[in-house]
């Protein structure tokens, strides 16, 4: 195998796939990137057996073939190369010679036959989704994914293709983020599944704002084709809990707030929320909302926001991180905060189909 490639293109291609490789792996082959050279250029593939990523890089291939090389080391070498052109040749023993300008490297790889192949999606259900929709949906929900491994069904995003809608949900038991999008797909394709966190992170790296992606779904694996890149992942097995139970049915008070202002205010006030209680308190009075925080041995903060409010006076406390997370990931100018009382969850909504349920903190009076 022999090819010439620009340093930039090679580095780009490698960086797209290298995140999947974990530094601590039991199988040496999993630290390697599979490089397949053919007339069209290079295909680079990595996997940790749960998630696999494959991308392409343009190259001038003079002799096709394939091998695997340690990806972290390769990235470090390519990044430091002195010249913009790289020439790589690999012998039959998987020893790669990399030359660029005056420098020359030799690194030892492993045979490509050992590399675990990505799953096959021949008879899979196929969905066509605008990249922007999925990208937007993941951004608005992924921060609420649970990291508690004992509840493994929550360690991912629940994706449901039902009734002409794609619904994405994430929750960790204290909050729940959900977003709906209209989407066209055959009725026979109605399905739901859980995409693990790692695949969500990879997807977010690859998704752009234009064009479509193809989603293929087999029994326990999912495959996303984004341009020339492919992300394959195992699904989380198990049933996602019925998230609709969490969403409060009634609403007593609705406040319409500027997203930016609420975010900035919460951020400032939270500087003085104590580590122990870690909460900010929202107090509602006539046409005014006060955001306050205090920690006994440090001090306190208070900031007021003008709102349209005529209900009864009451306070509710939230974890500031949890309150800010959706605000950071939304783009809308205005958000609605729906409340019932100080003990019931608050609901953040936007004009389009986004919804965020947040449990209040106990206020010790």
């Amino acid at each position, binding site marked *: 195998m022999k090819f010439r490639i620009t340093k930039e293109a090679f580095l780009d291609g490698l960086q797209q796939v290298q995140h999947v490789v974990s530094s601590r792996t039991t199988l040496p082959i999993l630290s390697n990137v599979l490089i397949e050279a053919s007339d069209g250029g290079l295909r680079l593939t990595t996997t940790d057996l749960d998630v696999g990523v494959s991308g392409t890089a343009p190259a001038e291939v003079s002799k096709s073939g394939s091998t695997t090389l340690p990806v972290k080391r390769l990235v470090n070498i390519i990044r430091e190369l002195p010249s913009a052109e790289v020439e790589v040749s690999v012998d039959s023993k998987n020893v790669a010679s990399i030359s660029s300008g005056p420098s020359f490297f030799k690194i030892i790889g492993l045979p490509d036959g050992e590399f675990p192949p990505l799953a096959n999606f021949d008879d899979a259900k196929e969905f066509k989704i605008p990249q922007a929709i999925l990208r937007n949906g993941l951004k608005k929900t992924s921060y609420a994914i649970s990291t508690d491994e004992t509840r493994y069904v929550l360690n991912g995003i629940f994706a449901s293709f039902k009734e002409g809608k794609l619904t994405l949900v994430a929750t960790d038991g204290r909050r729940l983020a959900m977003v709906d999008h209209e989407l066209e797909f055959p009725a026979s394709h109605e399905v739901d599944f859980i995409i693990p966190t790692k695949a969500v992170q990879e997807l977010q790296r690859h998704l752009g704002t234009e064009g479509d992606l193809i989603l293929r779904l087999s029994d326990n694996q999912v495959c996303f084709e984004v341009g020339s890149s492919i992300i394959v992942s195992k699904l989380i097995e198990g049933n996602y*809990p019925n998230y609709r139970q969490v969403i409060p049915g009634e609403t007593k008070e609705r406040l319409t707030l500027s997203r930016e202002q609420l975010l900035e205010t919460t951020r400032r006030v939270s500087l003085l929320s104590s580590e122990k209680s870690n909460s900010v308190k929202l107090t509602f009075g006539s046409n005014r909302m006060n955001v306050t925080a205090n920690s006994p041995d440090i001090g306190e903060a208070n900031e007021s926001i003008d709102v349209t409010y005529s209900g009864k006076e009451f306070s509710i406390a939230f974890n500031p991180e949890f309150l800010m997370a959706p605000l950071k990931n939304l783009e809308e100018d205005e958000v609605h905060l729906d409340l019932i009382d100080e003990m019931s969850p608050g609901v953040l909504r936007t004009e389009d189909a986004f919804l965020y349920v947040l449990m209040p903190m106990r206020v010790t009076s």
Partner: protein
Amino acid sequence: MSKHSEGVNNDESERRQHEEEIGNVAIWDRVKAKLSEYLSPDAFNRWFKNAGLVAHEDGEGVIGVQSDMQQIWIETNYLVELRAAFAEGAGIHCSPRVVVLGQEQSATELVTAARKPKAGEQIKVVVPEGKEGRPDSFERRLKKLGINPEFDFDSFVVGDNSQFAHAACSAVASQEGRSFNPLFIHGRAGLGKTHLMSAVAQQYLVNNPKAKVVFLTAEHFANEFIEAVRKGNLDIFRKAYRSADVMLIDDIQFLAGKERTQDEFFHTFSTLLNSQTQIIVTCDCPAPEIQTLEPRLISRFESGLTVELQPPGFETRVAILRRKMEQWKVDLDNGVVVHIANLIKSNVRRLEGALTRVASYSFLSSEKMTIEKVDELLRDLVRDENSQQITVDQIQKLAADYYDLSLADMSSRRRPASIAFPRQVAMYLARQLTKLSLVEIGEAFGRRDHGTVIHACKKVKQDMETNPEVKAAVEKLTSALQR
């Protein structure tokens, strides 16, 4: 067991079961009433309206809900309220746990399903093993803690050898002995250290069902510590041990030579001691004799009460055998029992082993047990037993004979070389061949200081290396003693 009594017992257990269900419903109603005060109607209806109390025991209240989302949400958000509602509504202090019932199953159905005795359990209901009135859950809890339920005060045969240790332990178990802290039990293998400690733990749990009892071997402690270091979660490790109400550590001598574990143990130990938590430690030798144990730990061990378990006397041995025979429902001639008690002197465990061997042989062969037969069956045990039975007296006598001295010279104050050296050899042999402490050996050789014994041992060892005659003499004496 006859069919008739089985039926009675089943009726009885069904009736209890039924009462328990009614009890759970009543409790849950009161808890629910409280919850509806704490929570908004919406939250209450959403999470608790269709929930039910499945069981409560051991300080644990099991709530059954319909969906996994209810389980997740309640466990993450409402445990504080739930605990408070249990305490205030029903006066029950427990830590709630939430389980998901199958969609088609209602709470009461689950209760019945869970209570249906399994094949193994049925026997338990029919033949309660002498621990009437104790729920299965208690035994389960003991098992979880690693305590053998059979090791309780009732099954411990008290004799002269163990009277003090037994009294100290029962005082600690009934919490009369706050000043006996730490309680240090030592004695050779198979004399009942673990039995006594388990008994304390059990009694303590009976008296304080909610107490957090930590019962483990020093080896287990060391392993957990190493694991915690490896995983980097020492905090959790410390929290787990330092929050105990009673801490019982078996075979502390295992810590010898493990410096970091000793260090961690020392701090755990001090923390607990400072918070006046009862600690009980067992060891196979007196604390100062544990090799390579930090002096500060030794002094901590000595700061409380130290009790020793000694090998049981003849009467105690016979009593132990009789107790065991009663328990196992075997019948042996009085002469045979006395004979076994005469043969095995040093170790209760071995005594039980000997009884098992004799009893099972007589059961399997249905031969009548004779003293000769017992001798034959226990030949290997007896040989081992005798090899351990070297006493200082024997050593002194043999050494005096060998060096042609009078026995009195062994303990006299005279110290010409012709007497002093044989005496030193005898001390060395006593150190090597008996399990006595330096102090005890010094005591036996005319109330000499333990330093004298150390010196004697060192000197003889050195001489053995340089002088083949001395070496030959020591070897000859040793083999004569071990014969």
